[in-house]
């Protein structure tokens, strides 16, 4: 894309800053959202992505386990959570979780991703035991488990501090926290959509605490419901400030809201151009977060491949047994094989690199 185009679009100054590797402001982020030419915004994000990662596109061979969908929060955007006693409610016991891990011991999985609802009465020892037994069963497996929201919930239920929760989970085998539950940090939006959930500040506090203890985390943003573009940018800015302080964020994951089966009836699904623009602006705002993920479960595989040109460098994983997105009507496949993932990345024009949860390249014999 030539300088002339950015001039025509009134983005000459932002183009200059990006080329020089300088940080863009919240207002500049808003101007990028307002730009009608998604290719221009995408090409800026691609410039940054190329500078950071060259032609590498990462993926992970992982397993998702949802231990329970029973949840006290009742967030309006969620199609997964159920009240206790609901006919569709489920909860796994520790043996069930172990059996799921055992069932895949022959697969070259490097990461298990474990999240669930905020369960009203499972004791904290349940989570500790699950982690401990997984680590014993498969010591090489990295456990990425429990969003900041779950961590705060465990603390409340157990009557201990979040630091204590993190300390005990780390001792039990926790390697990393996933980025879920961040939604958008805006107080206005949380009051409308998830008033029972941990606040935006609370989420950031748990993440900061984890980082201070040497526990890396990811971060997400659920967009495309009732939030404004300004609120998206403010969310990104809050993460950028946290990252300046701690450096503990590994990967940012923008998640398009899937309205089917949720309580937000009139909402329309996001369109492809909006998904790509959000991806690109995320890359450009989060200059200090190493990785941006195109989560194909939510985006569709086809759009996720295109997103590798719009700032994303990670294609997520092979994802066995994903439930949360699919219960909200996500139309993507349930699982992708490693071969298929590599083919899609290569045909997109990138070099597939298998990674672990910390984005270390995985060497296979």
């Amino acid at each position, binding site marked *: 894309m030539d300088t002339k185009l950015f001039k025509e679009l009134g983005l000459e100054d932002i183009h200059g800053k990006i080329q020089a590797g300088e940080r863009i402001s919240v207002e500049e982020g808003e101007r990028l959202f307002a730009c009608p030419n998604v290719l221009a915004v995408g090409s800026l994000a691609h410039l940054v992505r190329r500078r950071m990662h060259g032609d590498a596109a990462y993926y992970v061979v992982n397993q998702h386990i949802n231990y329970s969908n029973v949840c006290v929060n009742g967030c309006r955007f969620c199609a997964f959570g159920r009240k206790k006693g609901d006919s569709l409610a489920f909860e796994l016991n520790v043996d069930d979780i172990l059996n799921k891990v055992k069932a895949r011991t022959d697969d070259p999985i490097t990461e298990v991703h474990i999240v669930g609802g905020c369960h009203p009465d499972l004791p904290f020892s349940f989570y500790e035991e699950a982690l401990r037994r997984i680590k014993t069963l498969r010591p090489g497996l990295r456990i990425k488990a429990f969003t900041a929201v779950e961590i705060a919930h465990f603390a409340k239920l157990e009557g201990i501090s979040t630091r204590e929760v993190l300390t005990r989970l780390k001792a039990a085998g926790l390697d990393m926290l996933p980025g879920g539950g961040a939604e958008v940090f805006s107080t206005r939006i949380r009051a409308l959509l998830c008033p029972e959930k941990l606040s935006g500040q609370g989420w950031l506090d748990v993440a900061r605490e984890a980082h201070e203890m040497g526990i890396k985390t990811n971060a997400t943003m659920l967009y495309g419901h009732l939030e404004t573009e300004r609120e998206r940018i403010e969310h990104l800015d809050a993460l950028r400030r946290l990252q300046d302080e701690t450096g503990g964020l590994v990967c940012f994951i923008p998640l398009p809201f899937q309205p089917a089966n949720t309580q937000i009836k009139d909402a329309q699904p996001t*369109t492809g*151009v909006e998904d790509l623009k959000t991806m690109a602006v995320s890359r450009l705002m989060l200059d200090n977060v190493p990785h941006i993920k195109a989560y194909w479960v939510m985006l569709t595989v*086809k759009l996720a491949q*295109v997103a590798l040109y719009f700032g994303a460098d990670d294609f997520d994983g092979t994802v066995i047994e994903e439930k949360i997105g699919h219960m909200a009507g996500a139309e993507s496949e349930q699982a992708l094989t490693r071969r298929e993932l590599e083919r899609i990345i290569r045909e997109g*024009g990138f070099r597939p690199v298998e990674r672990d949860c910390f984005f270390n390249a995985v060497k296979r014999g």
Partner: protein
Amino acid sequence: MRKSFIHHEGREEREGTMETGRLLEKAALGERLSIDEAADIYGQADFFGLGQAAHSLRLRKHPDPVVTYVVDRNINYSNICVCGCRFCAFFRAPDQEGGYVLSREDLAGKIEETLGLGGTQILMQGGHHPTLPLSFYEEMLRFIKDRYPIHIHAFSPPEIVHFAKLEGVDVGKVIERLRAAGLDSIPGGGAEILVDSVRKAVSPNKCSASEWLGVMEEAHRQGMRTTATMMFGHEEEPCHRLEHLLALRELQDRTGGFTAFIPWAFQPGNTSIRRSPETAVSYLRLLAVSRLVLDNFDNVQASWVTMGPKVAQLALQFGANDFGSTMIEENVVAAAGVHFRLSVREIRRIIEAAGFKPRQRTMAYGPVEESDRDQS
């Protein structure tokens, strides 16, 4: 033609060169690309440069930020087919179970439903039925035209060639008789890849490339408009795709009868061709190259049916100016296991969200009166 670019296809991210940059600039201004130049940009140009050039050319041809769509239905009058193309998941051989020929009653029902939904045309195609005479198709057209004010876009060139052989008359005569019976325009289906070596491998019993082009030339000569398609991503090489585009461009130079070009990706589910489906990035690159090479085509269509609505929306920045059809009914791609559904309202919302004005059109790409439109 230089073959070197084939090695670049889908292997490493292309960064573009001074030369491809110059070619893109030239093509964006509507200047003609040679096949070597087309091969250079297809193989080497960077993703954004290609999209931007295709979009610039699209805006030169259609300066208004309008994206059109048509409300229609695919009606497959029969799935019985003697061709047995390896890429097809829809057909049944004549002696196979599950074959059908649509009854008049079912046909009428489908058309009434289409009109009720604000539809203006039907796209009617079927297999190469071994015994139905030309009079069957003439009567079907008359049956429709006597009853319904609807545009009939029907019988792809391979069907017309098949009718001619079965009836023992020439293609010109078949088109004349079908026109007299009510045929309004001919769809560009069955083009697959217009290179005989590829056709021999994937659809050996179907009409040749020159027969396909011959039907279109004859139809244009008789004053009928047609579309053109390309089904890619099966057993062809990238250079065959470019040969296909050049064959269309050459015919269009002579007749000007094509209204639109519609490339779509082969869907391998339930077919006899074992390969993975074409990816979105490959689709967008080819779409952009199509827009730039087909400098004498007004309209290029995005394919949400095969690529999904999200990628089809981005295709509006890669050279496409038309969102295709609402496809009240679609059977052929669905038979390969791909199911996307979109309402008129959803199509309009997607077009608007991409920054364009949606406008319902006819087959000839003229506007449909707003008062006629059902926005449900």
